[in-house]
Structure formats: structure tokens, C-alpha cells
């Protein structure tokens, strides 16, 4: 063990080009080992390079939700677990369906493991989900949902969305080991795994955690005898955890019912810096809608 540790340091030095003598240490070590062990010796730098190359090769899966794409730097990373947390009416479910619509819209197959059993096929079709390419799985327990998700990831689905439904989640948070297994399976098969939950469940297994804040509803009408109408919902999505970046970046998510579509004007881009936690600026939700009735 001590010998390996020594070589590790020499190797690092060699790779950094500091000591030319140490540069051949790795070669000498490899030459001294049996054939079957040579390929297993890696320097830390080589390992990092390999991981980066793999990540760069895989094009992310675009979500078609501008706020999510900006936070995820292009889309859902393949082979990783992304968790989207959101309380009731935070827009979490709409975001998940939009991701499914984007994936099935480009011709990919996708699976929705719907623990909350909340999918309305008509709504999904309206949002652009190609229902023929969507496999809907309706487990009754979290344990079954995790098992089903693992099977789907292993069977080659490029996108699996697991929605845990509104709180309380049936079956608690699940075992940490189960989430790690899911992350490992997603990585092994290069599949994007998006988990929607009311609170953090995946622990250290997730590569990215996004949190949808409390929703602000916009109502139309209601004065002079005109009927009130739900005009839309806006919430703020925050990057809570990311393995490659500092967390804190926020984006605005604006949603409108199908009867009152919002203009698809993207909110202004924000600088990549942590948001102030004490008091986030409130972006007014501007609604434009054709006259009701």
C-alpha cells in the first residue's frame, strides 16, 4: 500500500512535468507488473481526463424549458441523476412533462414512473408529449417505483422521469443505497434520470439538485362582474447542488394554463453567480391574454 502511495505521488509529479525522473515512474511500475495489472494503474490526472472525455462526448438531453436548460447548461446530463424539488403548485410536474415532451418530440423513447398517479394523458398530449413514445408506469409504493426505474434505466430508455407525487410520499424517502444504485445504473447505461420530489430524497446520489420555490399565482378578471380566471403561475428555480459549479444560480419559470397561453418570451439572462439568499428580487409576472369568453 505504501509503495502504491509513493508511486501515486511520483506519478502526479511526472504528469505535471515537475520532475522528469518521476515521469518514468509510472512506466517502470507498469513494466514491473504482470500484464493483467498494467491497465489498472492510473494516475489521478488520467482518471479525471477520462471522466471529462466521457462527459464531453455525451450531448445533454435538451429539456425545451429555457429556465432548466440554462441552469443545466444545455439540458439533462446523460448518465446522471438530476433531482427537481418542488412543493405543491411549484410547477414541478409541468416541468417534468415539458422535459418528456422535448424528449419524445425529437423521437426518443421516454418513461414516466408516476408514483403519484397524477398524469392526465390529455394534458400531456396538449403539452406536446408524444404518447406513443411514452411508457407510463404507475407503481403504488416507493419501493416498487425504485425497482421499476432501475429496470427501465437498464433496458435502454434514454430518459426516465420518476415523479414521487405530492407530499406525503408513499414509502418515505427510500434508502440511500437505492438512490445510489439508480445513479450507478443511469451512469452505466448513459441514461438521463430526472427525479421530481417534494423534498430532497436522493442524498449524495444526485449530480444536480434544482429547487422550485413557492409559486405565485396570477388571477385575471374578477372586477365589474367579470369572472376570475387563473392566468398562470410563476416560481423561481434555484440550483441547489451541482458537482461542477457553485450553486445558487436562479431562473424564473412562468407557466400558464392551456386556455391562457403565456407569450414565450424568455426572461432575461442572469449572471452565473450565487443569488442572495436573504431577499431574492421578485420578478413581476406579466400576463397577456385574450379577452375571456
Amino acid at each position, binding site marked *: 500500500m505504501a509503495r502504491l502511495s509513493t508511486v501515486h505521488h511520483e506519478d502526479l509529479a511526472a504528469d505535471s512535468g515537475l520532475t522528469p525522473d518521476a515521469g518514468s515512474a509510472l512506466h517502470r511500475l507498469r513494466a514491473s507488473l504482470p500484464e493483467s495489472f498494467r491497465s489498472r494503474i492510473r494516475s489521478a490526472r488520467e482518471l479525471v481526463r477520462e471522466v471529462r472525455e466521457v462527459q464531453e462526448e455525451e450531448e445533454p438531453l435538451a*429539456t*425545451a*424549458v*429555457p429556465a432548466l436548460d440554462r441552469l443545466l447548461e444545455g439540458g439533462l446530463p446523460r448518465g446522471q441523476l438530476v433531482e427537481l424539488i418542488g412543493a*405543491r*403548485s411549484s*410547477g*414541478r*410536474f*409541468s416541468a417534468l412533462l*415539458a422535459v418528456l*415532451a422535448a424528449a419524445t*418530440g*425529437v*423521437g*426518443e*423513447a421516454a418513461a414516466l414512473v408516476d408514483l*403519484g*398517479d*397524477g*398524469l*392526465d*394523458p*390529455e*394534458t400531456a398530449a396538449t*403539452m*406536446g408529449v408524444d*404518447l*406513443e*413514445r411514452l*411508457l*407510463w*408506469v*404507475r*407503481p*403504488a409504493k416507493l419501493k*416498487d417505483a425504485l425497482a*421499476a426505474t432501475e429496470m427501465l434505466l*437498464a*433496458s*435502454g430508455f*434514454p430518459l426516465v422521469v420518476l415523479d414521487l*407525487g*405530492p*407530499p406525503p410520499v*408513499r414509502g418515505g424517502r427510500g434508502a440511500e443505497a437505492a438512490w445510489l444504485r439508480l445513479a450507478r445504473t443511469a451512469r452505466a447505461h448513459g441514461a438521463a434520470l430526472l427525479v421530481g420530489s417534494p423534498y430532497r430524497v436522493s442524498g449524495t446520489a444526485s449530480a444536480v439538485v434544482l429547487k422550485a420555490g*413557492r*409559486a405565485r*399565482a396570477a*388571477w385575471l378578471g374578477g372586477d365589474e362582474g367579470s*369572472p*376570475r380566471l*387563473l392566468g398562470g*403561475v410563476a416560481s423561481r428555480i434555484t440550483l441547489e447542488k451541482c458537482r461542477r459549479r457553485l450553486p445558487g444560480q436562479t431562473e424564473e419559470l*412562468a*407557466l*400558464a*394554463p*392551456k386556455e391562457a397561453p403565456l407569450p*414565450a418570451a424568455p426572461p432575461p439572462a442572469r449572471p452565473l453567480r450565487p443569488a442572495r439568499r436573504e431577499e431574492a428580487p421578485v420578478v413581476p409576472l406579466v400576463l397577456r391574454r385574450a379577452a375571456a369568453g
Partner: protein
Amino acid sequence: MGSPRIACVSLPLFPLAARLRSEPELIREALVIVEGNGNAARVVAATRLARNAGIRPGATLPQARALCPKLVARPRDEECERAAQEALFEVAETFSPRVEDAGEGTVFLDVDGIERHFRGPTPELDLGRALLAAAEAAGLPARAGIASSKLAAQVAAGLPDSPVIVPVGEEAAFLAPLPLARLTPEVDLASTLERWGVRSIGDFARLPKSRVASRLGTTGRELHTTARGIDPRPLIPREPPPAFHEGMSLEWPLVSLEPFLFVGRAALDRLCQRLESRGLACVRLGLELRLEPDGHQTRSIDLPAPTRDVKTLLTLVRLDLEARPPGAPVAGFTFVAHPDRPRQAQLSLYGPPALSPDKLATTLARLFALLGPDRVGSPRPVDGHSPERFALVEYAPPPPPEVRREPRTGRGLLAVRVLRPPLELEVITEEARAEDQDSAALLPIEVRTLVSGTSDKRLRIEGAVKVASGPWGLEEEWWTEDPAGRDYWDVEIAGAGIYRIYRDRASGGWYADGIYD
């Protein structure tokens, strides 16, 4: 038209070969296959170890045990023999589409022209060797013979140093030096001829045809014709079976699941290999159980898509047996695979990758087993206005586009998360117009979930209504006895979300059936 070329593949000691195919671990034992019951059981076939101990076919079981105390005895098993016969037939079908099933471990193939696939100096010999290798790979130690008639091919297949090739037109010369016993299994006729001094097939063929017919009748005349190398029987090809069988009778009745799955797995392995050899997969798996002391049980497992995955099939069998135990010890079993063509997928160079049909079928089958068939599928909307309605259809995604499409920017639509079943509520309302009791006059001002035994662990909605929008009427199926009449409101509850609630016009009860999320 030249002479046809017919190959015969036969399994010597067929009952023994069939048993060893199902229980290969017995090959190193002194094993005999017996027919009959108790001490009257007689040996039908024996392994080399048992034959070396002096055991011969026809000996009784006590005699055999006296010669070899460590003898392992197994009764003849129809299931094993049927499966071995089918497997042999399928091996033959991989070489020729015209195969006749002669039963008892023998099949005939029309191999006319097939030798052209073998480029060596002795193409028919190479074809025979290939037949033997294929049979060996299926666990069948066979012998093969190729000739221009079925009879000559069968006799050739019975000889050692297999495969034996009989050149065209040399059938009579090939048969002539062989003993008459090779020609006819009817011992009485052979012994009669031997008493006449006729010992070989050639001797018999030299006798005048009319004399043989007058002394031995029709049987003698037919035998004389075959002894001259003339076999008028044509090859009668068999249609492929509608189902594949694999099973065995168990030495001891099994009462627990794990030992049954252990032997069942081996049978499923063999079944799937047979399906694979014909490019088929199993779309429905039947299981026939023979119970102790008597009785049968049959069950059928439907698969969402054709599959050959043994692990999946075994899981489904396990779940089915756990859900519905047989209720008696199992003395024998047969798996019946109903075949179908497996799904094919065209790979795309520039489009998104398609799902592997095999993997998808396996996953769907496992999901069905885990969750039930009503919980897995492709969603479809249903005509009508009730939001909780939906339909599930079989998941069979269309092939991906040839070129990857560009993703479109989402429309930013707000979805409703449906609550199934609707959540029962207690709603305090305000009467907008006191003189009018119509529901249009009601305005929800406070909402509370009704706590019942079933809803304890479900979502709770509680709080004062901040904004309410409605009512929006829904009437459906008014022509039926159970029409749906609802008045919907969209309500925002302070700090607790936006919900879609309704009041049932018939009962007056309040429910929440969706969350704007």
C-alpha cells in the same frame, strides 16, 4: 430426376438419451431406464457403466441391482422423450426445411443439394459431421447416415463410426453383407429366415421374390423389396409444431417452490434454446403441473411481448406460483411455449437509437409481474370530460425518425396533477345571494380534507381560500342512470397551492381532483 438424398439422424438408446438430456449430471452414474412397476420393472436402456457391470436390456430391476448395488434407476419419462424428439426435429430443421418425424429418436431429412454448402472433398461426410455436431450441441448424442432411401439411411445411422454415407446406387451393395437383424426389428421373421440359412440381407435379396411372397406373405414381400435396396416410402415432412414443450416427471414430488424453480430453470433454458434455434420467442407460456397423488393443474402466463429471456420467464413463473400455489406436491411438469416472431428494430445512423425489442419485452414482462398489467402501458386520452379518465394500451413505440429532430421550445403550459381517486373535502362556502340556493351562488372560503380511514396517509388540503374562480359546470352522460354533474372551482389556498375542486350535484359532496403544479 436423380435419386433423392435422405439423411437419417437417430438417437441410440433413445429413452436413456432423453433422460440424460434432462438430467445431464447422471451421465457419470450407472443409470438404467426401466419400464414397468416395482420388481416387475425391466431395463430398457443402460449407460456404459451399467452395461460394463453386466446389465442388459430386458433384465428386471432386482437382477440389475444385484449386479450393480450403486445402480440409479429412472422410469421412462414421456415428457423427456417428447422434448428430446422435438429438439432433434428442430436440429434437423436447421439443415433442411423438409424433415420427417419418425418418432422414437429418429428423424429423416431431405438433404438433396445441401452438400453444396460444404466445400471439402467429401461434402456429404462433412454434412453428416455437421448434423452430429448440431445434435451434440443440443445435448443429443446422435448417429447419422445418408443414403438414397429412408431405409438405407436408417440402417446406416445404426452403424458405429457415424456418420456413414451410402453412395448413390450402392444401397443394395451396402445392405448385402449386413445381418438381417439390421433390416427388421421383427425378431420372429429374422429368426425364421436364420433357420432357413438366410443370414445376411444379401442372402435374402437373392431369393426369388415370388417364393418369398408365397411363404412369408405381404410382410415378407415388402422386406424382400427393401433388402434389394428399394424403398418406395416417400419422405413425409412434418409441419412445425404450434407450441414447444419441455418438462419432466420428478423422481420425488416437490412441495416447496425453490427446488421446483431449480429444475424448472433448466427446462426453460432448453426451451429458450430451441426457440432461439428457430428464430422465435415465447409470447405465452403455459405450465402444466401433474400433482400427487393425482390431478392436473394448468396455468397460462401471457407476456406483453415475445421474449426468450429465461430470467424473466422464471420470475413470472415464480410470481404466478406464489400467487396461486398448486395446493399439492408436484410430481411432474411441462412448460408449453406458444411461439411468435420476436420484434425487430432497424438501427438508425443519424436518428435517436431505438430500444432493443428483446430488452423492452423483458422489461415490460418484469414490470407486469411487479406491478400488474393495469399499471404499465402507453397512456391515451379517453373521450369525455372527467379528468380522471384515461386508457392504457400496449407500449409499442414507433421507430425513431431517421434524422434527429431539433427540440422545440416548450410552450410554458401549466399542467394539472390529477388526484386519483378524488380527495373528499369539507368546504365552507359563502352564499353570494341568500335567496338563490343554486350552486352558482356558492363561493368556497375555507377548505379542509375529510379524514377517513383510507385518506389518513394521503394528501391533506387545509386553509382559507385566498382566491376562488368558478363555478365551471360539467355535465356528462345525462342519458345514463349514473350521470356526472359537477361544479368546478379553481381555488388558491394561502401558502398551500392551487387546486381544482368540485361539488357533486347529486350528492352535494365536495372533492379535489387536481393540483395545478
